[in-house]
């Protein structure tokens, strides 16, 4: 017993991923979820617009909607989700150990996480990236005009490194004003101690609301780093991986084909073959991935299509008012592109 404990400790300390793959040889996730009667969804400890509590304590947000969509597809009930708030440090272990079935917690998709951690990122549900915020009075329209500017940034983060890279590659000089805590960075910028403030674009919009006069600040169009935020599942269960991935694609396809929470019932009678296939009137596509054929109808009824979820949580329907930008449909000039359901 003692021996096995020691072995376990050594292995776990060496590489968390090594033990993870060993412990992931569990029964099929879909069966486990169905048997349990609810989806265990790992969310963050609070991020405006992505996973945050409302006044009653219910979870709302883009990532939260994604979990509700999976629950709707599996159970036809978006409430059958148990949200497990996870800190940044414990999120991957929780997935490896089977405590959660899916991690929807604004995690950046990188090759090291895909390989060594034993995770499988399903699809990018939000294209984020580092941006700049400046005061309107500065009359700056682009980050390239920030020559000689002082920039408030949190120290010890990749944000700080990206900032240095950006200015060096554009041969601009700048003065970094670094702080330990994010709150300090925001306060310093709000107190005019620097010309610009940089962090992930989604964060800029949330922090703007904390400023005394949000309207006097603008977010510049340049995005200087790639932060594809993607939900993840455990490696080694391709059925579950496919389901989770296609829940995202279903929400995108619904938006592309104009199926909304409101008109989904009317759309059932649509003559468009794409809509017919998507809503389960033709073919056995839902059954093919282990769900029911009306899976997309369930999803759209529960949380709406991707565009609706976006606007409600982070876009025009929210206080954040984040521009769709890269998250527009491919047909609108964005990066969100879903393979067809056929």
């Amino acid at each position: 017993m003692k021996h096995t404990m020691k072995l376990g400790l050594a292995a776990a300390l060496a590489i968390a991923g090594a033990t993870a793959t060993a412990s992931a040889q569990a029964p099929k996730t879909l069966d486990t979820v169905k048997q349990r009667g609810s989806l265990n969804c790992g969310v963050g400890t609070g991020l405006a617009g992505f996973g945050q509590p409302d006044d009653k304590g219910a979870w709302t947000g883009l990532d939260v909607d994604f979990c509700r969509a999976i629950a709707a597809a599996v159970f036809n009930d978006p409430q059958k989700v148990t949200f497990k708030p996870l800190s940044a440090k414990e999120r991957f272990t929780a997935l490896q150990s089977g405590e959660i079935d899916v991690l929807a917690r604004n995690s950046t998709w990188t090759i090291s996480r895909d390989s060594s951690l034993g995770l499988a990122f399903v699809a990018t549900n939000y294209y984020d990236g580092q941006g700049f915020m400046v005061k309107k009075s500065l009359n700056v329209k682009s980050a390239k005009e920030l020559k000689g500017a002082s920039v408030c940034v949190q120290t010890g983060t990749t944000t700080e490194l990206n900032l240095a890279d950006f200015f060096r590659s554009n041969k601009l000089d700048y003065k970094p004003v670094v702080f330990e805590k994010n709150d300090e960075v925001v306060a310093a910028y709000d107190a005019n101690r620097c010309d610009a403030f940089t962090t992930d674009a989604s964060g800029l919009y949330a922090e703007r609301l904390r400023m005394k006069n949000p309207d006097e600040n603008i977010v510049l169009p340049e995005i200087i780093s790639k932060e594809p935020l993607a939900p993840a599942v455990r490696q080694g269960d391709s059925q579950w991986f496919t389901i989770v991935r296609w829940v995202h694609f279903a929400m995108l396809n619904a938006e592309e084909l104009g199926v909304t929470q409101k008109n989904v019932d009317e759309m059932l009678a649509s003559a468009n073959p794409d809509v017919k296939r998507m809503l389960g009137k033709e073919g056995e596509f839902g059954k093919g991935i282990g769900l029911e054929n009306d899976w997309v109808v369930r999803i759209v009824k529960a949380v709406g299509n991707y565009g609706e979820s976006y606007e409600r949580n982070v876009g025009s329907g929210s206080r954040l008012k984040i521009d769709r930008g890269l998250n527009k449909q491919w047909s609108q000039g964005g990066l969100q592109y879903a393979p067809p359901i056929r």
Partner: protein
Amino acid sequence: MVDVTLAPTMRRPEKIYSAKATTDTRLLVLAPVAMVLTELVLGWLRGAYLTPGATTDGAVRSMFSYDATSLITLGTVLAFFVGHLAPVNWLRDNLFSSVGNAVMTLFGLILIYGMLSGLFGFSVSHATWTGDNGEACRPNSGACWPMVHAKFAQFMYGRYPDGERWRVNLTYFLAAIGLVPLMIPRVPYKLQNAIFVFGVFPIIAFFLLVGGVPGLPHVATEYWGGLLVTLVVASVGITASFPLGIMLALGRRSRMPLVRWASVTFIEFVRGVPLITVLFMASVMLPLFLPPGWNIDKLLRALVGVALFAAAYMAETIRGGLQAIPRGQFEAADAIGLNYRQKMSMIVLPQALKLVIPGIVNTFIGLFKDTSLVLIIGLFDLLGIVQQNNTDQKWLAPTNAMTGYLFAGFIFWIFCFGMSRYSAFVERNLSSNEKR
């Protein structure tokens, strides 16, 4: 009963010191409390003039300036207490006895005024009292109280289901019924009372809070949060660590090598590792060792960790008390033929524990505040749930984060200050018994 009186010479200086200290602290405590109350009443009166959505700032400025109000309040309150408690002589003797002291007094008063007026400015005069979202709080530089109002239930119960919250309240009520008479020395039936609080109540509380019996649906601990988690972790930690600590302290002084070494190893191991590390290990590493599908409740992990931790610190505090008991007391107990249990429970521990009350309470208060560390394993105590709600976009505003922290700090202060005052009362009470 055996007489446990200490020599009078050992007691006297301490006695004088404590009597003096009490008067002073009372004054220091009552004055700000009275000020808070006055300001609250003033704030409420001002609020009464306002229509919903309007801001306090403008209305107050139109009546009279905020600084003047605060100054008047401060002056009145100070004049009342100083005038009420002591004549001018007292002022001269204690505050203005020399030029240096007078300067210090004035400096102190300015400092106090600066801090208090800042606090009241933020929490009362410049605060927002009504509103539906963060935008209502933006114009004012003070606290965003409607946010706390909207989220108050969440701060208290976390995500505990709405319809089941009466169970939490009933638990609090039962705890109060048990604890209040236990804490008042004059109330009789202490033994029965203690059996209820430490034997019966935990079982009732467990079934009330967790449920899973007919009539009480199961409420998983991940729905618990806010003050409920803080109180559960702290009270379980406190109740479990005290007896464990006594056993460990006695074990460490035991003549049996096995017991002694076990106690020493435990205490030194626990004191050698930070609590945050143990909680972190329990939440990140433990799940990897367990077979898939196994899952130990997070709250339980935290409870065990916190209780064992507090026990080790408690043991060392109590050992300090044991070492202060003169050898003669042990020998006297042996001489009248008491066995180990009788000797410890009737002679040594009563004296030792009394000596280390400040240390014990210190550990309890530290433990109460350490409960916030459960945040790192994804449990949301009062501070955690406040932080989490700071991200709610509906209430994002310049001051909402500070308001949340102020509220959490105030609640923590009430509990910790209450504990420290009660311990002072117990000490006084025990010393007065000694006079007989």
